[in-house]
């Protein structure tokens, strides 16, 4: 994003609207991104971002030490812990954290009161959230897979790709929640733990409407291990992932555009 | 405890009966980066005392030390004759504290909350209930006291905060910005209440405020702390002494009046819509009166200007700066703002003559 040259006039009076350059649009604004990164990684909640992948690696190291190299165990752990617990949790933290606290404490004003399209703000924050959650979930998943059985049956790569795809969708969903409600983290956790963690694993019908299953479809395609199965086809999975990401992102932008920072009188 | 002499300078008479409510002796508090209090020596007498201090560490640090919650780096302080270093708990039993910030849980009623706080102060259950009912009535909370506090207005919340500080019948209350967030009507009521806390309840009050005008109106004494040091402590009357300058405002023809008074031998300056007349002697009053009468214009105002506490924070220049504010040389000390450039003085002068003088005369409070 190169900076366009606005009027650098120092005299305040006089209309500049006509002469002014257009409002900044696009999908990525460097400054918004920098602020978001620092908000996400510079605070206490970032600890959780580090803790969860660390926990995963500790567990897989322990398991590797116990069980040696084993494809079945690898698939179980990567699906049971990485994809169904860690990925959504990281998604909650990154997705809501990218925008929720700013709206909550009102600092978002400093972004909104700028000649920048609000859709640009949302898309930038979404990209940041995606970046952060991919780094903190797909990468550890890949590492965990390698530790467990060194990409045997392509399991490590399969689950890493699935985790990345899921991270994108989760980021969008939770970013939208962050715009919609002050209780985004709680709602997100309930969704992540209950829907994805329990219902998605137990109630068959719910599985078709589960980010975890959609991304599992990708893992199923990539891995050579027959124990990795999804309830949805690859096409369905990918279509749903794209659709959910796009709709959530659009809706978040729409909501931010009409966000009312009403006085609290 | 180390030193049980009659606390010279802490103003206690022979044995413990405090004449001063608060007495500090070269009290200092230093943090790694800032010095919050710097050898502060001040006595606070019974009555309502206003505390003025820059934002930041000083004020809250002093309150913490006085409540025995934070040790001083050096120096000593006594509250109600008790040493803050050793008798903290006892002091806190006899002192009430109303914080500046919100401190009320929204989901309980004022009654429940204040009863609970009364018990935290050591009142037995029955006494806690009875005193809560009385105290809430005294601060002006009636039916609302059974409703959850989340729905209260700012004024009602401030009343509950005051009630919890009074419920155990303290000898002294520390009120931190009690009028913060209140609109004019609410402020008038709160200031009236604060006066009553002293006059009717017999409780000494130390009240902080950033609004100097309201301290001038409410306090018997005023203590000004700046940069951790005592800038000045004296009675409000001393702070607001009359100056030798007479402010005159007329409905029309200021310039003519200025010329006339000048011709009559008076030194006159124009400031906004005011004329400032240096008082040579009593005759000056008559000269002004006659000049106005002769011009046939209305005499809106003629009063001696009073000093204001705000002057402590501006350049100590005499009145009569030109209206425009030049960019004053910024010489920031760490932590607080630079002295204001001279423009303040001029504008303040042209803007406020009504408020300070007259409200001091006694009308400000019964406006409601």
């Amino acid at each position, binding site marked *: 994003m190169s900076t366009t040259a606005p009027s650098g006039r120092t005299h305040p009076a006089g209309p500049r609207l006509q002469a002014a350059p257009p409002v900044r649009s696009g999908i990525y604004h460097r400054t918004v991104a920098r602020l978001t990164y620092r908000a996400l990684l510079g605070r206490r909640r970032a600890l959780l971002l580090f803790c969860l992948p660390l*926990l995963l690696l500790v*567990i897989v190291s*322990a*398991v590797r030490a*116990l*069980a040696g190299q084993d494809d079945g*165990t690898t698939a*179980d*752990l990567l699906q*049971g*812990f990485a994809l169904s*617990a860690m990925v959504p*949790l990281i998604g909650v933290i990154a997705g809501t954290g990218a925008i929720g606290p700013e709206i909550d404490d009102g600092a978002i004003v400093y972004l909104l009161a700028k000649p920048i399209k609000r859709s640009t703000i949302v898309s930038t924050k979404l990209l940041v959230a995606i970046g952060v959650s991919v780094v903190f979930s797909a990468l550890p998943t890949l590492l965990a897979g390698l530790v467990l059985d060194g990409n045997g049956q392509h399991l490590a790569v399969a689950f890493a790709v699935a985790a990345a795809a899921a991270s994108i969708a989760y980021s969008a969903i939770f970013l939208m929640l962050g715009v919609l409600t002050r*209780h985004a*983290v*709680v709602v997100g*956790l309930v969704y992540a*733990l209950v829907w994805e963690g329990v219902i998605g694993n137990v109630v068959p019908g719910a599985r078709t409407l589960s980010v975890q299953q959609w991304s599992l479809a990708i893992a199923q395609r990539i891995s050579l291990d027959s124990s990795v199965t999804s309830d949805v086809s690859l096409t369905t999975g990918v279509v749903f992932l794209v659709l959910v990401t796009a709709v959530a992102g659009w809706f978040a932008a729409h909501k931010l555009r009409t966000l009312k920072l009403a006085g609290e009188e | 405890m180390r030193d049980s002499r009659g606390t010279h300078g802490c103003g206690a008479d022979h044995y413990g009966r405090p004449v001063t409510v608060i007495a500090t002796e070269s009290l200092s508090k230093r943090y790694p980066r800032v010095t919050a209090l710097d050898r502060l020596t001040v006595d606070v007498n019974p009555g309502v005392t206003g505390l003025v201090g820059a934002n930041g560490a000083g004020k*809250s640090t002093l*309150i*913490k030390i006085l*409540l025995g*919650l*934070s040790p001083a780096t050096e120096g000593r302080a006594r509250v109600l004759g008790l040493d803050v270093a050793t008798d903290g*708990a006892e002091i*806190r*039993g006899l*002192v009430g*504290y109303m*914080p500046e*910030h*919100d*401190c*009320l*849980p*929204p*989901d*309980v009623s004022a009654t*429940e909350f204040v009863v*609970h*706080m009364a*018990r*935290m*102060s*050591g*009142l*037995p259950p*029955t*006494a806690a209930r*009875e*005193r809560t009912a*009385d105290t809430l009535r*005294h601060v002006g909370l009636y039916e609302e006291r059974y409703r*959850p506090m989340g729905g209260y207005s700012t004024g009602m919340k401030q009343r509950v905060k005051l009630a*919890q500080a009074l419920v*155990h*019948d303290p000898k002294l209350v520390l009120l931190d910005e009690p009028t913060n967030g209140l609109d004019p009507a609410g402020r008038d009521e709160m200031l009236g209440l604060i006066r009553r806390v002293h006059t*009717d*309840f*017999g409780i000494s009050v130390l009240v902080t405020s950033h609004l100097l005008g309201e301290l001038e109106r409410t306090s018997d004494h005023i203590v000004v702390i700046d940069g951790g040091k005592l800038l000045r402590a004296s009675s409000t009357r001393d702070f607001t002494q009359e100056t030798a300058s007479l402010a005159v405002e007329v409905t029309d023809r200021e310039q003519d009046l200025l010329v006339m008074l000048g011709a009559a031998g008076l030194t006159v300056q124009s400031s906004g819509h005011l004329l400032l007349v240096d008082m040579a002697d009593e005759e000056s009053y008559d000269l002004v009166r006659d000049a106005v009468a002769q011009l046939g214009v209305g005499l809106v105002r003629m009063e001696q200007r009073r000093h204001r506490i705000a002057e402590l924070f501006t350049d100590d220049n005499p009145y009569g700066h030109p209206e425009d504010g030049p960019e004053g040389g910024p010489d920031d000390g760490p932590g607080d703002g630079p002295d204001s450039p001279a423009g303040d003085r001029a504008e303040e002068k042209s803007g406020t003559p009504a408020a300070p003088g007259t409200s001091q005369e006694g009308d400000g409070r019964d406006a409601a």
Partner: protein
Amino acid sequence: MTQPDVAAVPGPPPGPPAASPTDVIHNIGYRKYDGPRLGRGYARKSLYSQSLRGAYGLGRSAKSKVLPMILLGAMCAPALIMVAVAVFTHMTKLPVAYTRYAVLLQAVITLFVASQAPQSVSRDLRFKTTPLYFSRPIERVDYVVAKFAALATALFLLTALPLVILYIGALLAKLDFGDQTAGFAKGLVSVVLLSVLFAGIGLVIAAVTPRRGFGVAAIIALFVITYGAVSSVQGVAMSQEKYDVIGWLGLFSPITLIDGFQTWFLGATSAFPNASGPPNVAAGLVYLLVIAGIIAGCFGLLMRRYRKVGMA
């Protein structure tokens, strides 16, 4: 005790009809208080009882009673059913050991901690009520002790009540008095420890998350994730038949800590895979030390936390 107030203001002025002594206008102005001022101990007790009642929503809005009461019900219902079954089918022993009950219903206990620990301490932080406490005679340690004790007691009530039901039921079913009493006593010891441990962990998390929702979520996440991780790795160890490892792994989540402790010290049957509790004396002692260490650590963290919060 209030009636004859300071009758300072006399009735009408000395006028024609002499005022009878019953005609008085009482002074209802400000009254001084010169009754007793009870000290820290009393304030601490008051805070304790208030917080304990608060944990069950007593003295608060009707809405805040709902969840704790439902959880208490959920905790007791299985015990009642078991007792009924035991009495009517003339069982020779209870279907569940006293020591096992809390482990089985850990989800309910977790929910209770997660909902009530934040309500106990996060509110004071969120709404900045803490300075009001510390500007009174009570000290930091009084506050922490009262809050800690109150939540531990609330948890003890939650976990001990079903055991009492089981015990009474067992006696009604004419099961062996000695066995039952011993089992009941062990169960009580176990839930005391559980209550203190869970209360400590819950309070520490709640005290660093002033936002109540975060606190609730963080507590649930901690209990669920650690338990999930421990049991899944235990599962792997089981499949590899490494039973000692199973026993050691229990150290890494709160409920399995309690399980390991009672398995070694109270002779309970472990709920671990293959019932593999702590493998040896050293392991048993480590369980005890870890539990004690966590409880002490939580207390220390709370004290530290409130030193900072103090009067902010």
